[in-house]
């Protein structure tokens, strides 16, 4: 780790416009009336993976001169509220005020390398690492004071940034104890952490402080960053994925558009730098109209997409096999169904933006990337630069829900900044490019087959999944960043053939004696990567729709049927709770209530979702009236953070389920704006209700993705209850209901 003096780092943050507003939200928590120290218990289970990469306290936590704490997290704030969760665990272990804890999010050379912010893993990794770092810091501060005063730590108290002696009431600030040093002690087991029964922040609905800024308009997002002498740029993207530039005539550009500084052409990469932002918009348009490109490789006909996928797929891999499915299917009647999901967009509300400045030696970047360290690897390869000559700072962007275009905008800015050194170059993507070049969540096919035994229990279950890769995130392979594929010497994007994520949750969590899961990888026609919950969305849509069909065959209530196949108490509890929440609901003619359950990744958080819909039998119109969710993520860090994620997840999933699909013809992608790629609008938003089962003694799991998968199935099951029509092919639209 590069040591950067605190003073200069703080100046750096101030320069970015992050001026924190003094605002105490927790009046009731301020001040420790009772300096009795909360009990500690020894944590002796596994340490989070992130600690393996950054083992010492000072990698995670710095004590500032004024005694406040700076947490260094390798994660990025994406609107999920991770900053607040991290503040909570740190303030908890050090018995401090929340506003005395600042969180410095990912920056190369400063924060630990925690890979990507994704997979609902920031709580498990970053927040838990901070918990153990803060707990270790507390231990060390007490030990150092004990040594200094030549007394036992039993005679000392640590709270509100001081260590106080019970014997003579003398107190020392953290800064005084450390005398300018930081704590370089290794974090190792056992770690004495605060007993959960004494928590005052963790498990509570601590409000996020960043919303105060969002409603007022100081610089919050990457799009808001401004630097003296900053210039603007746009990139002319090719008309298709494999189009190559054959001619460009920029001779008339300067006469047509004011403020043009430079046009950069490198192979099929065309960028233009201007003084003002709208000049860049016009210059990009001019160059697009004055350039010629080769025709891109045609796409399959949209109506043949799923046939095409099966044709190009590799031979299947057997992912899970228990008992003997083939033998169990022999001579018995089986139930079969095929479920499909189209390509989906991340469709971030804020198109990508990236800033870069090359000072002649170091290339500085500002990006809303989910993984600045891996992005640095990709850029180092693309630019043939040493990684330590590339400095990237994460800045919040609009919610992106997986690997979207942030890294690509940063890459554009990097290329242009090297061509125009010593100025900050700001690249803003258009809505058209954001919708067209986004690495989509891939189309999936999930085929299921099952048989029941004589007691109407599932005896045998087979899942077959067809999926493209869900992980094309940047790494040292430069083809992962878009612009690299269009340079004079292009970096091709090698398909990773990675199936992980594609078959996630395709094997049911239910107790079934014979289970087989096959996964088929295909390298499809569209640019793809990770989209919130990966393959689980389609697989749980399939599995939980299928469970309702099997329950019907068994002549059982769908929830009762599920409970008959579950042994895990926590799974049973979320289902029973969602049933209780919906018990008092009445359904009119044309209305229905559906349910779905999931344990995310079959190993993490538990969730049960219910949906109530009304279907107009004449025109197929679907009204989504209300959705309920019950979640168990183990130990709750922030009650409202979880509620917010689950509410939002259900609404986003409802949008995917009822409205969304990437549209295309053989020549091009056609869903290039919000009219052609509609998402739910206010008139269509269901009421949402979330209940949380807090289990403070259990491992804390992330929640970011968990509401997505069961929401689709709950809606599909509700529609079936409402009108007797089952749609297998997402999105569920009125015409599909009428034609089923």
């Amino acid at each position, binding site marked *: 780790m590069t040591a950067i003096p605190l003073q200069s780092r703080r100046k750096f943050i101030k320069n970015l416009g992050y001026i924190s507003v003094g605002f105490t939200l927790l009046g009731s928590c301020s001040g420790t009336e009772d300096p009795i120290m909360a009990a500690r218990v020894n944590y002796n289970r596994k340490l989070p993976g992130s600690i393996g990469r950054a083992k010492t306290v000072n990698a995670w936590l710095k004590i500032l001169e004024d005694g406040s704490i700076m947490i260094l997290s390798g994660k990025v704030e994406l609107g999920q509220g991770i900053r607040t969760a991290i503040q909570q665990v740190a303030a908890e272990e050090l018995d401090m005020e929340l506003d005395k804890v600042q969180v410095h999010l990912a920056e190369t050379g400063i924060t630990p390398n925690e890979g990507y912010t994704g997979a609902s893993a920031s709580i498990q990794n970053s927040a838990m690492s901070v918990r153990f770092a803060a707990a270790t810091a507390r231990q060390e501060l007490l030990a150092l004071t004990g040594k200094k005063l030549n007394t036992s730590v039993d005679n000392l108290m640590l709270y509100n940034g001081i260590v106080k002696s019970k014997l003579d009431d003398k107190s020392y600030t953290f800064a005084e104890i450390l005398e300018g040093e930081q704590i370089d002690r290794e974090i190792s087991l056992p770690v004495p952490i605060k007993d959960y029964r004494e928590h005052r922040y963790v498990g509570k609905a601590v409000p996020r402080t960043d919303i105060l800024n969002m409603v007022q308009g100081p610089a919050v997002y990457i799009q808001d960053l401004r630097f003296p002498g900053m210039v603007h740029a746009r990139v002319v993207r090719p008309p298709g994925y494999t189009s190559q530039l054959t001619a460009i005539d920029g001779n008339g550009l300067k006469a047509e558009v004011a403020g043009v500084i430079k046009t950069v052409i490198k192979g099929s990469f065309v960028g233009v730098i201007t003084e003002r932002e709208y000049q860049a*918009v016009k210059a990009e348009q001019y160059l697009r109209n004055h350039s010629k490109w080769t025709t891109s490789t045609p796409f399959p006909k949209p109506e043949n997409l799923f046939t095409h996928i099966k044709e190009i797929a590799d031979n299947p891999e057997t992912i899970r096999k228990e008992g003997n499915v083939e033998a169990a299917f022999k001579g018995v009647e089986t139930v079969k169904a095929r479920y499909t999901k189209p390509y989906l967009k991340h469709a*971030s*509300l804020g198109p990508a933006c990236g800033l870069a400045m090359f000072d002649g030696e170091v290339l500085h970047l500002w990006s809303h990337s989910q993984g600045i360290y891996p992005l640095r690897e990709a850029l180092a390869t693309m630019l043939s630069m040493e990684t330590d000559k590339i400095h990237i700072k994460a800045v919040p962007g609009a*919610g992106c829900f997986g690997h979207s275009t942030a890294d690509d905008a940063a890459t554009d800015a990097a290329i242009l900044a090297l061509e125009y050194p010593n100025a900050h170059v700001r690249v803003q993507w258009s809505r058209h490019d954001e919708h067209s070049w986004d690495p989509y969540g891939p189309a999936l096919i999930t085929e299921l087959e099952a048989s029941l035994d004589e007691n109407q229990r599932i005896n045998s279950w087979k899942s077959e999944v067809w999926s493209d890769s869900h992980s094309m995130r940047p790494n040292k392979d430069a083809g992962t960043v878009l612009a690299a594929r269009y340079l004079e010497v292009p970096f091709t994007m090698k398909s990773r053939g990675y199936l992980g994520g594609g078959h996630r949750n395709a094997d049911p969590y239910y107790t079934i004696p014979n289970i087989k899961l096959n996964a088929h990888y295909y390298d499809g026609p569209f640019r793809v990567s990770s989209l919130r919950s990966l393959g689980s969305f389609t697989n749980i849509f399939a599995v939980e729709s299928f469970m309702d069909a099997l329950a019907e065959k068994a002549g059982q209530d769908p929830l009762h049927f599920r409970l008959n196949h579950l042994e895990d108490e926590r799974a049973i509890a979320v289902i029973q709770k969602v049933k209780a929440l919906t018990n008092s609901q009445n359904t009119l003619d044309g209305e229905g209530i559906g349910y779905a359950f999931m344990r995310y990744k079959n190993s993490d958080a538990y969730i049960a979702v219910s949906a109530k819909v009304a279907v107009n039998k004449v025109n197929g119109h679907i009204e989504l009236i209300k959705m309920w969710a019950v979640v168990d993520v183990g130990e709750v860090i922030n009650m409202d953070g979880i509620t917010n994620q689950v509410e939002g997840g259900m609404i986003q999933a409802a949008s995917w389920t009822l409205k969304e699909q990437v549209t295309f013809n053989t020549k091009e992608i056609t869903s290039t704006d919000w009219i052609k790629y509609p998402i739910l609008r206010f008139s269509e938003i269901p009421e949402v209700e979330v209940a949380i089962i807090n289990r403070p003694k259990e491992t804390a799991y992330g929640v970011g993705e968990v509401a997505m998968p069961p929401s689709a199935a709950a809606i599909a099951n509700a529609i079936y209850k409402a009108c007797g029509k089952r749609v297998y092919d997402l999105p569920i639209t009125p015409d599909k209901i009428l034609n089923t």
Partner: protein
Amino acid sequence: MPTYQLNINGSLKKVETKADTPLLYVLRDYLELNGPKFGCGLAQCGACNILINGSASTSCMLPVSSVGDAEITTLEGLATEKNKLHTVQQAFVNEQAAQCGYCLNGMVMVAVSLLNTNANPDEAEIRNALQGNLCRCGSHSRIIRAIKTAAKNL
């Protein structure tokens, strides 16, 4: 290049730019305001909402030459006193009505516009007013709640 005198947040601002520059770019790039956001440039998402004479409008397709002497209010101009929030802003904070918050400018501006003409809107009226505003995170139910709270506190 023509010069325009604009009435922004109660003060006159002089801007020299081409006539077709959309107001959003004038506000963000020339006047360095962050409230109105670039979301689509197509008047489809509402992230760039401002108030024109108290009424919400998108700004991303509105040429600066058509603004004239209209009173333009941005998110930055809502609070009338320093260090105090407008009732609508305060309601969004109290209800924690955001995830990423990128759409929030538009939501707040439309809410203020709605409450300017209808002090006590019902849920259908709130949803109808926000129909042109997209939120990707799914904060809709909190946003509706915040506007109800704001109406009560006005």
